[in-house]
């Protein structure tokens, strides 16, 4: 019976997994794109830093289910619109990453920055070619946390009926079947491990000098 249920529902499970992956990855990428300039700004201004970190801390406090419910009011979307989930998770990703990026950029050695300036790098070139690459390991660490958390938070959207792996939990509960729930949990864990490994691999690929230092 176990295998039959999975085979019978393979297409739907695949579809839910694809939605789940998209709803987890897209907000992480969007969050990173917003958090980089914001974190850079915060790392350069002692006045902006506490403001940005404080605000993102409070934002992170708001339970995801509350945000999913309230965003339609703000965005003018329908309650079932996946856009609500994307926006909510993007906000959480920004909140998490902005601090990591600000601290990562602030911890780039002073000498490195000065050397780049002396070589004639303009501030934005220096950011793009020197400071960000040096901060990649720290940012990668934050990104791993963000993407794994997102995989877990997306399931909450099942309470509102937005399809993703969490839908297997509500389905299992209403049918009084444990199998869909277990399948959903396992697939969520697999998805977070896969995404975690991907981000980790990308971080290593972007910092070839780190491997050299390790093997030397």
């Amino acid at each position, binding site marked *: 019976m176990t295998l039959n249920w999975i085979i019978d529902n393979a297409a739907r499970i695949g579809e839910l997994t694809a939605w789940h992956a998209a709803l987890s990855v897209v907000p992480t990428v969007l969050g990173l794109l917003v958090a980089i300039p914001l974190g850079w700004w915060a790392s350069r201004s002692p006045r902006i830093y506490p403001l940005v970190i404080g605000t993102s*801390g409070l934002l992170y406090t708001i*339970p995801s289910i509350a945000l999913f419910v309230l965003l339609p009011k703000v965005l003018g979307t329908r309650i079932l619109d996946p856009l609500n989930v994307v926006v909510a998770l993007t906000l959480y990703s920004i909140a998490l990453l902005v601090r990591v990026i600000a601290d990562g950029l602030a911890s780039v050695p002073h000498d490195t920055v000065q050397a780049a300036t002396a070589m004639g790098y303009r501030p934005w070139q220096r950011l793009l070619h020197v400071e960000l690459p040096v901060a990649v390991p720290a940012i990668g660490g934050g990104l791993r946390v963000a993407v794994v958390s997102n995989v*877990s*938070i997306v399931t909450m959207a099942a309470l509102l009926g937005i399809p993703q792996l969490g839908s297997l939990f509500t389905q299992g*509960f209403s049918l009084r079947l444990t199998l869909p729930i277990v399948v959903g*949990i396992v697939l969520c864990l697999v998805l977070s491990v896969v995404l975690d490994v991907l981000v980790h691999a990308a971080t290593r690929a972007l910092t070839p000098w780190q491997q050299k230092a390790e093997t030397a």
Partner: protein
Amino acid sequence: MSILDWFLDPAQWAGADSIPVQVGYHLLYSGTALLVALAIAVPLGVYIGYTGRGELLVAGAANALRALPTFGLLVLVVMLVAPLVGSRLAFVGPTIVVLVLLAVPPILSGTVAGIQGADPGAVGAARATGYTRPQILWHVQVPCALPLFLSGIRNATLQIVSTATVAAYVSLKGLGRYIIDGRASSDYTQMAAGAVLVAVVALVLELAFLGLGRAVVSPGLTRNPLPTCRRTRTVRPDLVPPSTPRKAAS
């Protein structure tokens, strides 16, 4: 009916299902789970931080928990356990167990990280002054651990409060009722009002913890600068999560 009208409706403020009653239930479940989690995690965390045994276990639990979908875990545990209990507590018991399970790792890692993160200089100075090991633990390491310990409890509390909201799905009382019942009857106003209430409760608790942190943490610890070379900056240890915060239901 607007959300404001909903809040101004006297019917929401009196009776068995009124706002104060649901807030009360929410805080009752959350408080119970937090106390049980503290009773488990604090002694264990002090032991691990003090002896250094089982550190990998703590890191592993924190990471695994971040990936675990709390909503799925909740539904699964309630479905497996509820038929065995078969009383009024059929749903409450398993839910509290899940809430405790979710709250233990952040408190544990906060306690361990705090005790181990105590400035080695301060520990060495205490030893040189003639402090015994237990004295170092209670008079140096524990006070130094307070900021990380408190942020561990704060993370745990937010985790509990938000998961308790989701627990309305498995028929628990509390603020999640408004969201779940509103969804079932397509009453968006009720859902939004519930969401506002949950967000307010979470924010009030967060601010209370920040205030508590300021009150009990030694001022000597709050001037701990980050390893930044370009400029010195005041860091708020009360905002520094132990390792990284987990956000599931929260």
